[in-house]
């Protein structure tokens, strides 16, 4: 062993480990700070954090809840994923099943372009397509923006799930006379069930964390609950837009309260992430 070689090896090791530890620390700090700053406010508010409305500017203490925004988050992400999933399932199946055909290449170009669409651009586009004609920002416009975010993400995950199922399985399906529809349902979704479920949970987690596509579309109704089906056509808010609004607030109680809202968002995200991991781990 030459000395220069072992010196180089030692140098590489030290620099790799130092920078890895710094990086890990920085990432962990994010998680720790959310919990450490959020927890006191969550304890202060108790369960009302989940159903009360956010603090008003004239309030001294950051007391309140994220109720309306939490409902907005669940409804808008739910609608978005419900709309995107069927389209994504068929698009991903098409890309795997008809690989090499001209329309698949075309589909891929469209898919790549939608994937590259900045979320803030989605926001302004949905604004001019829906908000201006409807004359109001609405839960529906927000949900459709989110669906546009969910679609390419879900297609790319599902394409991975479907192409990991061996081709011979599909061929076996056709050999016993199954139609394409049944092959998709019984073979791809049947065998890839856990992958599909995990994809839906991951997409939900991704979509409910989005802020930019909602900024000009969903409105800023942080104090009113969606009450009926008609509320779909009225302004609403999500936890993400609530945090964004609160963090630009000049009033300390509101600015502080964003920690509590962040903690709620963090917990919802973690739950969905854990769900996606759990269903992926279990082969149903």
């Amino acid at each position, binding site marked *: 062993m030459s000395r220069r070689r072992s010196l180089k090896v030692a140098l590489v090791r030290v620099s790799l480990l130092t920078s*890895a530890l710094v990086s890990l620390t920085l990432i962990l700090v994010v998680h720790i700070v959310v919990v450490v700053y959020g927890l006191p406010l969550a304890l202060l508010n108790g369960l009302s954090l989940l159903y009360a409305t956010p603090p008003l500017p004239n309030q001294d203490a950051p007391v309140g809840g994220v109720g309306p925004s939490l409902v907005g988050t669940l409804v808008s992400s739910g609608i978005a994923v419900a709309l995107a999933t069927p389209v994504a399932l068929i698009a991903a199946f098409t890309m795997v099943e008809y690989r090499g055909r001209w329309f698949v290449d075309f589909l891929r170009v469209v898919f790549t372009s939608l994937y590259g669409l900045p979320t803030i651009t989605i926001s302004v586009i949905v604004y001019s397509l829906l908000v201006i004609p409807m004359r109001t920002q609405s839960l529906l416009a927000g949900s459709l923006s989110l669906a546009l975010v969910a679609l390419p993400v879900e297609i790319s995950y599902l394409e991975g799930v479907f192409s990991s199922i061996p081709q011979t399985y599909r061929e076996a399906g056709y050999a016993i006379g199954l139609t394409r529809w049944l092959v998709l349902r019984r073979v791809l979704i049947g065998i890839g069930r856990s992958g599909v479920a995990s994809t839906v949970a991951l997409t939900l987690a991704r979509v409910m964390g989005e802020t930019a596509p909602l900024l000009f579309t969903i409105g800023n109704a942080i104090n009113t609950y969606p009450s009926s089906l008609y509320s779909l056509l009225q302004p609403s808010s999500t936890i993400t837009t609530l945090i964004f609004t609160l963090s630009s607030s000049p009033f300390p109680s509101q600015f502080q309260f964003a920690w509590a809202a962040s903690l709620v968002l963090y917990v919802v995200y973690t739950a969905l992430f854990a769900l996606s991991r759990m269903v992926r781990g279990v082969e149903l």
Partner: protein
Amino acid sequence: MGARVFSADKFVYLVGLNLAILVVLFALVVYVLAVKSAPSILSLGAGLLGSVWNTDEGRYGLLAPLLGSVLVTVYSIPLIIVFSIPLVVLAEEYLRGLAGKLVNLVIDMSAGLPTVIYAYIGLAFMSNVLKDWLERPLHELLGFLPLFACRPLTGQNLMTATVILSISAVPYMAALVRESLRMIPKSYVEASYSIGLYKEEVILMKLSMVRPAIVSALLLSSSRVLTETTIVSLVAGNQYVITPCALSPVSTIPSLIVNNFGYSVMYPLLDSVLFASSLILFVLSLSLNAAGLYLNKRFRVVVSE
């Protein structure tokens, strides 16, 4: 059952419908961007790339936010490389068993963490820490360099934005790089150990094998940084200035849109200018993404052969 199984395959229609939905969506996107941005491009032309942004005088120069977007992206590239690749190596090569799995879990979880959380932590916590512990010392020690010449008045500036954007992009990059490292055939690694290479030499060799995948991951991460909206809106400071100094407040294209879209109807052309800027953003992000996805696909073909 028999009739259903042997009935004609009507699935083709579903595929066709699906293709139509995607194409119509895409056409709508292109149509809106083209129609809305046309007035400003036609009437202002090259003036769109001017350096002055003043809505009252009707001067809509996009140079400052465009430069802000480019600088934030370019500056974050070295940070992302330096912090993501060693992290992957730590999780995959040095830590065995549970510890490695835990680090990988943290990476995966942070990769999808809502960016508004990073943004708010950046604003309420990290910008002050960075100002006191990094930016002030840099200004005092290296103030003679144009890069650090201006005094960091608040923690909201180009450098803070770059650091927080990088922290948010590192887990995503790390997850992508990890997938490519796992695709290297085991026999290669065993062969390199069998000729007596040190672990670190094997790591360097593996990293050089996946270099195209690293470039691809970097392109995808940069596209995320470029189009990130909430973080820059909250921590970059939102000033329309052109300066070589990294401690100055800046704005980017997404933060320009966020800050002006609300009252864009009050000024002639402003709304169209904002659509033009989001068109520019789309083109930039699309090129980064397409290049990234293309490289990634080619890398997969090479490895699987």
